[in-house]
């Protein structure tokens, strides 16, 4: 039976760089989608600010100037304020174990948590970016059953499949998708707002898939 009972965890990192091998997450947010009702589970929001490990290095500011500028622009504050905010955030290990605890609360079988009962990861461009960071952190902090071992939903791939022959959206980045979906840009690039918008997109896609799938004649 292919009917899914695993919860879907839409998550997003805000990081201090774009190299998944070395970048440090500075914010992590997630929401859970109920697979049967296809709605965001009430009270399932997760959001945490994370302290980059190397922030105490003297050259941290210079090496990460572009990213800090981007975050300052999004938050509407100065570079120093961003640096101070990051410095006072939760250490990575604590934040990551908190996230693991959060995910473990949403296994399909709380009595026997396995990699098959874990939530299914979802997000925009998670294949090429977020999941690589997840794998790195899981290895670093020895976490085994954070997400479902096989299934994942990348809205970037889904967007390509659905829109590859259309004029709109002009690009596949999430800002363009958000605009295409007619969503407000308010709060864009704060992790929690991004995941909520992305979760909304995932829900729309899944609803669409479910409706279409029953009408398609799959057999030859």
């Amino acid at each position, binding site marked *: 039976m292919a009917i899914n009972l695993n919860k879907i965890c839409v998550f997003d990192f805000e990081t201090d760089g774009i190299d998944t091998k070395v970048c440090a997450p500075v914010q992590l947010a997630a929401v859970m989608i109920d697979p049967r009702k296809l709605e965001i589970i009430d009270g399932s929001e997760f959001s945490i600010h994370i302290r980059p490990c190397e922030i105490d290095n003297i050259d941290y500011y210079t090496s990460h100037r572009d990213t800090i500028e981007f975050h300052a622009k999004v938050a509407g504050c100065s570079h120093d304020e961003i640096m101070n905010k990051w410095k006072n955030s939760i250490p990575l290990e*604590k934040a990551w174990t908190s996230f693991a605890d959060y995910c473990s609360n949403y296994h399909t079988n709380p009595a026997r948590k396995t990699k098959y009962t874990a939530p299914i990861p979802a997000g925009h461009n998670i294949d090429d970016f977020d999941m690589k960071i997840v794998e790195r952190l899981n290895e670093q902090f020895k976490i085994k059953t954070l997400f479902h071992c096989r299934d994942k939903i990348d809205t970037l791939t889904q967007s390509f499949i659905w829109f590859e022959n259309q004029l709109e959206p002009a690009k596949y980045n999430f800002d363009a998708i958000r605009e295409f979906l007619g969503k407000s840009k308010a709060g864009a690039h704060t992790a929690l707002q991004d995941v909520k918008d992305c979760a909304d997109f995932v829900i729309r896609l899944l609803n669409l898939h479910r409706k279409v799938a029953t009408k398609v004649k799959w057999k030859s």
Partner: protein
Amino acid sequence: MEKLRFDCGCEFEVIQQNPLKVKYIPKIVHTQLNCERTWKFIQSGQTKGMFQIESQLGKMLAKKLKPENIEHLSALVAIMRPGCVCKDTKVIVGNYTRKNGTKNLKKISIEKLYKNKHLYTNLLSVDEQTGQLVENKIKDVLYTGIKPVYKVKIRSIYRHDNNDFYDLRCTDDHKLLTIHGWKELKDIVVGERILVVKHHHTSKAVKSTKGKHYFKEIAFKHYQEHCVFCDWNKGSLDVNHLEGNRQTNNEPENLNYFCPNHHREYSENAISKAEVIEARQKFKLPQYENFIWGEYLGKEYVEDTDVYDIMMEGPHHNFIAGNTVVHNCMESFEDEKSITNHYIDRKNNIEPVKYYVPALEPILKSTYGCLIYQEQILAIAKQLAGFTLQEADELRRAVGKKKPELMAKCKKMFKEKAKAVGILTEEQADTIFDWIEKSQRYLFNKSHSISYAYTCYLTAYSKAHFPRAFMTSYLRYAKDKTATKKNDEIKELVNDSRSIGIVVKGPDVRRGNVHFKLFDKEIYFGLSNISGIGEKAAETIINNTKNMNFEKVTWPEFLVQVGQFTNSKAFENLIEAGAIDFLGISRNQMLLEYKQFCDLTEKEVTLLTGGLSGDHNSLEYYLEQLVKKPTGRAGISSEARRTKIKGLLDILKHPPHSTRDTSEWISGVEEAKLGVNISASRLDDNHSAKCANSSCVELSNGGHRDYVLLACVIKNIRENTIKRGPSEGRKMAFMKVEDETGIYENVVVFSDAWEANRSVLIEKNTVMLGGEIKRNKETESLIVQQVFQI
């Protein structure tokens, strides 16, 4: 002397009032056998905990039979004796052809079959007449408890056993198909042939038999290993070629077994070929395409474990387990109908009670014309055939030991003597003896059965009069079950308790009980009943809370006094199981705070303890105070630690996720930690569930509306294909659903509703079922018309 009186008329001497203690001696001489309350309890099918009839099968039969006296109960115990198959044993659910053309059998474990009843409707059986592999419909798969199981050793080839291939583990009362008919494992003698699946041998050892021993292999497959003249079967048994030798003719027709003496005689032409062919006939084994007659090599005790049995719909009352043909759990009697159904229907006046000859009436009257006890055979032999007591006992032994030779001798004697007595005609004597022969499969010793029935009645009597004490003690011993079954057993017992109105509450540290205990008419889980907390850890927690003032204690005080001295995993389990809910903080908040607390050093905990005032019920306040302490000997050890504590404080101030306990989360963790959800159900937070107008208990008790709306979680689905009528070939389903009040088993989804709602009707899904209650014979079912995802 004060007495406790029940509406059934039973009275007990009160020894102590609070808590209530009465004088009750659980012995049959002190017990009223006509207690209406007890019989009602048995008839209701709430047989959990009752000796011999607590299994699913017992529950079902007690409900159907509605026993009213010990005689009925004794008959129920006698006719309900299923043998069972160990959980790992594989049963054959189908066959398929591989790409290379080889045929293969699809096997799954019987435990998996039990858990996925809805996925499998058929099993492969053997047609006893033709030896063909046939598809047979499953009526039900039953869990029959924990019983001692034995590994059955079988070989199907000459001088090599194939223990890996024939992997049947079953109880010793399970029946296997031998060359002499169905026999219980304990009655099969070593060397006897039993029907097993044909194995295509590939191992080196087996290949070697194809050389010089090839003819021995052929002989083994076609004949029982006995000398055709003297039944010799103890070693030195020779395979004889009637004509030629091993190089010229190895056809089965050219082979037979001889003992050394007869072999010599045959070589010396003292025995003719025709004599051998004639004598050989009785040792010839029927040959089948898919089966072979394996040799029984003995049984070996393995362990006491979970066992299951399968009820087949017929006409073939068998299935294949561990590549061996085994009998299903219902016995067949004089016709297609089982003895159990005959007895139940006759007792309930559905089927007329008839006696083959009037002379049988006084003997079979107590069992409504059914032959159930061995004692009845003695009476038949004595009264209708004029057997002496010694002869009748010989017949009983023949029946009890199921010895074919002895039975043949008794049959001859029975016919002769019956003719002499003159009550029965020759034909009638034949038929009656046929009955006796057929019924030897299930006949039970009445004295044995009556004593079982008495014990069963005693347990039922205790449960009917003191259900709380009975269930508490039963729950207490559920821990002795295997780890996987413990939770199922607890769940079943809690649901059973709820169904008879007993309140079962989760663990509570204030009660200070290690095991299940009864307080104020309510059963409380003990701390050691929480998964992950052993008896020692539970005792440590109880010792640490012995002098605690539970009315005044705050969460931070509890953390300091108990949390720091308890294993972290055990303490988390304690929180998750709801044992410290009385502190008034959500379980998620406690978990979050406990995790931060664990990151504090011993010195920091001491500093924190110094500041405890009892006014604040959150760790946040105390961490704030701790951060303000100076650095140095009397304060925080370093600035790095201060930053760390600030981080912990930050998490408490801005928790990364909601710390509210949702009912879904609570029911999930309680099921994981306690085996059953106690304080919340998945449906509690569901607003749509509030539209329901009925509950599972209401439906089970017969109270319902015209149109039922039931909010429930689907526990089990069994899909069936309709075989007759306008919907032939379409699928329909039977479901078992549960809500916070209990379980309701009779939900039927007909093909239209099933096809329209297939994507919603999934196990573990929460749905609203809309439909009507319809009555069919004795059972009421909810016929689902609409399904809503909630």
